[in-house]
């Protein structure tokens, strides 16, 4: 698959899924601590999300980095917009900004206790 086809596929995924997480492993079996942390945060907030496992697909692994101009995985997209990697998501969760963003985007979630 060419790079533009990968980019098209990513564009379709992030457009079709309000919360899309590119990660190493799956939500059930994350294969990297950073990916695991983002899954944990989204699960804790009861956010419905879809994941793509970059370890199963070398083209996606390179493609997602080029797509966002961001060198690492995980990468979280909300309503088609790149939000950030693990550190940014963690900070946004801790400050409540993640809940605010989800609310603004009309994505159902529970507010963390």
């Amino acid at each position: 698959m060419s790079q533009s086809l990968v980019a098209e596929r990513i564009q379709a995924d992030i457009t079709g899924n309000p919360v899309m997480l590119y990660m190493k492993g799956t939500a059930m079996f994350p294969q990297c601590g950073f990916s695991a942390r983002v899954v944990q945060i989204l699960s804790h907030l009861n956010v419905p999300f879809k994941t793509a496992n970059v370890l199963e697909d070398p083209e996606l692994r390179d493609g997602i980095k080029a797509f966002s101009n961001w060198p690492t995985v995980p990468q979280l997209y909300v309503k088609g917009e790149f939000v950030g990697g693990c550190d940014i998501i963690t900070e946004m969760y801790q400050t409540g900004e993640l809940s605010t963003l989800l609310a603004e985007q009309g994505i159902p979630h529970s507010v963390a206790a």
Partner: protein
Amino acid sequence: MAMSAGAIENLIKTAIPDARVTVEDLAGDGDHYAATVVSEQFRGMSRLKQHQMIYAALQGRMGGELHALALQTSAPE
């Protein structure tokens, strides 16, 4: 392949001269670091842009030579 904490600090300071940089080797393996960077240049910038600036300073080593770098960035209080 590994990088030293000093090398990471130098790259960041070269790109962002006013930055106060702390680099911690998390696992002692020269591969998993945490960096705190405080710079006036970050003021008014989104976290995403702040982290992008650090990644640019690392000149493509992030995700390759440098496996894991936990980042915390901020403007001075």
